């Protein structure tokens, strides 16, 4: 940003719209969650971290409405990249969920160190509508690179990790901790750009 512009942006009476203040978002499909998220939905083009205690509590179902939106309007079509998922994504279920199975890209690196690298490439390519990645321990700098790639490729990056990493530093623009409760999902907002911590209980995930 140029000095002159930075100077202007410091002006106290200045109202900043769009790019500087509120990041672009898309609704999550869950109204109770949208209400707590700055901008009313998932921020696009950045890193979103989800802490998930066990695969299968509803962490992907939480993302399905957004994935549907992101892919439905993409013309030409773009990919949903599944990076190192815990199991094989099941095509009939994806089709049931309204996603085009032909636009799914599964990437299963053998080595853990390749995961974030591959995530970065998928994000930076601009060829993906969204990238979902599963990763373990990661250096702050590697996560920063993922975030930067998300910004460069204008692609949302959903990173799913264990709650063991809750205390680690994270550059994610949005950080959520998920937990299963009573057939629903409790969502704790640990960090959000432009919002405070919040907790949404028993989100109806089907």
């Amino acid at each position: 940003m140029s000095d002159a512009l930075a100077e202007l942006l410091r002006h106290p009476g200045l109202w900043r719209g769009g790019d500087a203040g509120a990041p672009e978002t898309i609704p999550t499909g869950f109204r109770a969650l949208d209400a707590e998220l700055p901008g009313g939905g998932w921020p696009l083009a950045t890193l979103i971290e989800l802490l998930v205690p066990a695969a299968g509590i509803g962490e992907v179902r939480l993302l399905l409405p957004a994935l549907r939106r992101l892919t439905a309007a993409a013309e030409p079509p773009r990919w949903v990249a599944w990076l190192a998922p815990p199991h094989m994504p099941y095509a009939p279920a994806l089709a049931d969920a309204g996603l085009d199975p032909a636009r799914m890209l599964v990437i299963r690196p053998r080595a853990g160190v390749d995961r974030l690298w591959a995530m970065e490439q998928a994000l930076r390519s601009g060829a993906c509508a969204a990238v979902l990645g599963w990763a373990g321990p990661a250096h702050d700098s590697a996560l920063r690179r993922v975030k930067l790639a998300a910004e460069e490729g204008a692609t949302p990056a959903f990173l799913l990790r264990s709650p063991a990493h809750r205390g680690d530093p994270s550059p994610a623009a949005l950080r959520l901790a998920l937990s299963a409760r009573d057939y629903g999902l409790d969502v704790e907002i640990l960090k959000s750009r432009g919002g405070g911590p919040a907790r949404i209980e028993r989100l109806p995930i089907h």
Partner: protein
Amino acid sequence: MFQERPASIAPATPGRRHALGAVPPPRAQPAPGVGELWLAAHFARLPLDAVLPGTGQARAAVVTAPEDPRRTVVACNERATRQGIAPGMGLNAALALVPGLHVLERQPAAEAALLDRLGRWALQFTPVVSLEPPGAVLAEVRGSLDLFGGAMALVRRALAGLSASGLSASLALAPTPRAALWLARARLAMTVTRIDMLPGVAARLPLACLQWPEDTVATLDALGIASIADLLRLPRAGFATRFGPRLLEELDEGLGRRPAPRRRHVVPERFDERLELVAAAEAVAVLQPSLERLLARLEAFLRARASGIRALRVDLLHRGDPPTRLSLALARMAGDAGALRELLDERLGRCRLAEPVVGLRLRSGVLSPLQLRDAGLFERGRSADPEATARLLDLLRARLGHDAVFGVLPVPEHRPERAFRIAEPGSLADLPVPWPAMRPARPLWMLAEPQPLDGWTGALVTGPERIETGWWDGHDVRRDYYVALSRAGVRLWIFRERPPGQGWFLHGVFG
């Protein structure tokens, strides 16, 4: 706030610039706003336009506010209007008129974003643009009238741009921003150029165009006051006591009796960066890589803002002398550096350097959005052209191995473990998949092999779904599937062989 160092904005040939003529008069001058002419654009349908793309307007559609218990119609499209729907109507009444009505929820964030974009779009007419949320843009255009060939030509041009984007607006011109706003809200496409005409014009306006708080309007109504003319007859002191000084000030501002400071200006954004050269360049050809770096940054800057420019200036900086200046003006808005690069190459080729060049400076004209309506979030990023996909696949496979990257496709087959296959990414599905329409849900994750669940104690949620098939090829399956919940809250897809006996197997996880 538009003061900039003159040296940095002076065009190559300093001359009369319109914007400078529009600088507000000095404070000492008693008559406020003399000489100003404000264009107000009121977007009554903004709540709808912000959430519904142009192609969605084929059906009657309305927007309601979710927090409003009556679900009053906030805005509706033309088709809805033709079928008798109007803003202010309850949703039930609207649905009674048009049963197939498309009902959308108001999205304040989307409205604010669209208004901001409209403000930036208005920067093409003048650098002095101000937003009036929730649905209006104000622009001081006196200094731009000559440039556009008069007030009517400017209005026509603005309307054409808006309607090309499928946006409807009511436009009006007046010497004070507030009066222009009143006229636009009243849908009076009027131009009032003289400040002394304002009281007479305003007197004919309905009270509603003031958009005062409901209770104030109700009180005024009870007093028998229905128009601004009635209002203007009230004694000033009494009015101020009863309704507070703010509304009186508003009236005075509108009529030009007191200055109306406009805040919330939309700041014209420009790209302006410089690059020092490692070694002084004696020849133009040596500048190429550095210029390319600046152009790449300009391109990223424009892409991040989904904006384009029509003017660009390149300064070749010398140690002592004033810079050599190359100015480009483009016929069409440029959102990438392609067109600029060609023009610059050509210009540079003809350029004679009198002095060595020690640095470069690239400064753009005012940014303007490439698209007024957000036709899709997806046009913002680079689209998945086959090339980007091919590059990505090559890159991933080169490091991870060919088989580490693949697609998954459904296969028309009732046995769950055979209902999908690994495929080259992007391959088409075999056939329209003949699933029964109401087939129970399938899990997002499938295990490679069913796993025995010893001593299973979780809760069954739904089921059984009986799958009995495959007897013709020897791989027959006779199972009862259930959706179950583990103690950890994981939603599982488990089955029991029929006849029961061997216990439970885990086959999938719902994700």
